[in-house]
């Protein structure tokens, strides 16, 4: 476990030393969301209707945007070779990297999204639901995105390829995340949706670390 925390703290420290990288992702999220009212028009009822979908999609894109560098830096400077040689499981290392990614992107995105939701005219309950679903759903995005990042390590045009691999796999999370706010508008509770999002996160947690480790091993060969 000490290896896990060491790697996690190292990744967080690296981000803290260059906070601009996270800032760019969050700025992208804000700018991308702001474009929708400009493109669609300022009618509040239309905006409130599409807010959850727009914010969820923008969060998905923002999370993917930052994933390309998740393993690439370690791959280039040789850290990955040391991780492969380390005496603790590579699956844990993969998990630590994904957790670090979630802490620096998924978590701030979940906190920022309700603030932007105000501008879309969402009511208080929907704002809470938006934050809650993102909080439960974004770990899945980090894990699936981490897998796509590991698979495309060293590939040509890895950025676009990463999105092509990750987006279809992220569809269930998107559906239940954005769908929760819709059911709220229809007068139902969101417990089912949050529970299914949590289930999706657990399935991702149980499967992706092994796949990421397998992908990293063959990248290191």
């Amino acid at each position, binding site marked *: 476990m000490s290896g896990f925390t060491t790697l996690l703290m190292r990744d967080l420290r690296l981000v803290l030393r260059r906070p601009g990288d996270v800032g760019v992702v969050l700025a992208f999220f804000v700018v991308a969301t702001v474009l929708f009212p400009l493109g669609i028009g300022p009618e509040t009822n239309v905006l409130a209707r599409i807010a959850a979908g727009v914010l969820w999609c923008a969060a998905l894109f923002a999370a993917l945007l930052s994933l390309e560098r998740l393993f690439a830096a370690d791959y280039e400077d040789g850290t990955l070779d040391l991780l492969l040689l380390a005496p603790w499981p590579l699956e844990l290392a993969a998990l630590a990297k994904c957790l670090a990614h979630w802490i620096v992107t998924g978590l701030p995105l979940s906190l920022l999204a309700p603030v932007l939701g105000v501008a879309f005219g969402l009511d208080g309950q929907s704002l809470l639901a938006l934050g809650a679903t993102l909080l439960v759903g974004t770990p899945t995005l980090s894990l699936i995105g981490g897998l796509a990042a590991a698979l495309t390590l060293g590939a040509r045009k890895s950025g676009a390829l990463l999105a092509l*691999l990750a987006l*279809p*796999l992220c569809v269930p999370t998107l559906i239940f995340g954005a769908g929760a706010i819709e059911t709220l508008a229809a007068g139902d509770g969101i417990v089912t949706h949050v529970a299914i999002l949590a289930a*999706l996160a657990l399935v991702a947690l149980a499967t992706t670390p092994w796949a990421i480790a397998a992908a990293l091993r063959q990248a290191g060969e």
Partner: protein
Amino acid sequence: MADLHFLANPARFRRFSQRVLPGLGFATVLMLAVGVYMAFFVAPQDYQQGNTVRIMFVHVPSAWLSMGGYAMLAVLGASLLVWRHPLAALMARAAAPVGASFAAVCLLTGSLWGRPMWGTYWVWDARLTSMLLLFFLYLGHIALSRAYDSPERGDRAAAILALIGVINLPIIKFSVDWWNTLHQPASITRLDAPAIHNSILVPLLWMAVSLLFLFVWLVLLRTETEIDRRRLENAEAAS
């Protein structure tokens, strides 16, 4: 299993496929000819859908084959990762575009069928949407397997993707079904067809088997080409 190991050697597979391919190609053409004749002239018109029901004879088998094809990619991926089966990689590389083509045929014939039946080329129906996502999964597999300078890397990355994809496919299917019932009230009048009649079922199954022959023939032919291509590349690298 002994037979599978026998074919694991690409050179032996090549000798086997060269013996099988001509006969298989001939059988495929013959079966398709009979199947198309049955679909156009033997099967009756549907009393509500008229002649457009004949689209089904290509549409439905394509859907089956594209789903079966993805399962095949997963099995090939597992045998590559677990047993380092040298032929599995080449066969997966050969099969992915064929499966993707069947998914595309399914989507295209579906939208052509949708126009006269539902009045629109595309609806966000759960089945259509999950078939579209399956098509995207195929595209990801094809792009990933060809994204590396070393083909072996691409093969193994694509194998991992196929395994994760096959785990996620039921989840995607389930969530798209849920999404559709959530968003769309039944706006399209779906014909609640009575149990399918033999006069339509027989041509349908015949076409399914013929297209399966076509699938196998294409995959074997493309695998052979992949073996030759890999050899050529190795020879070029060596010289």
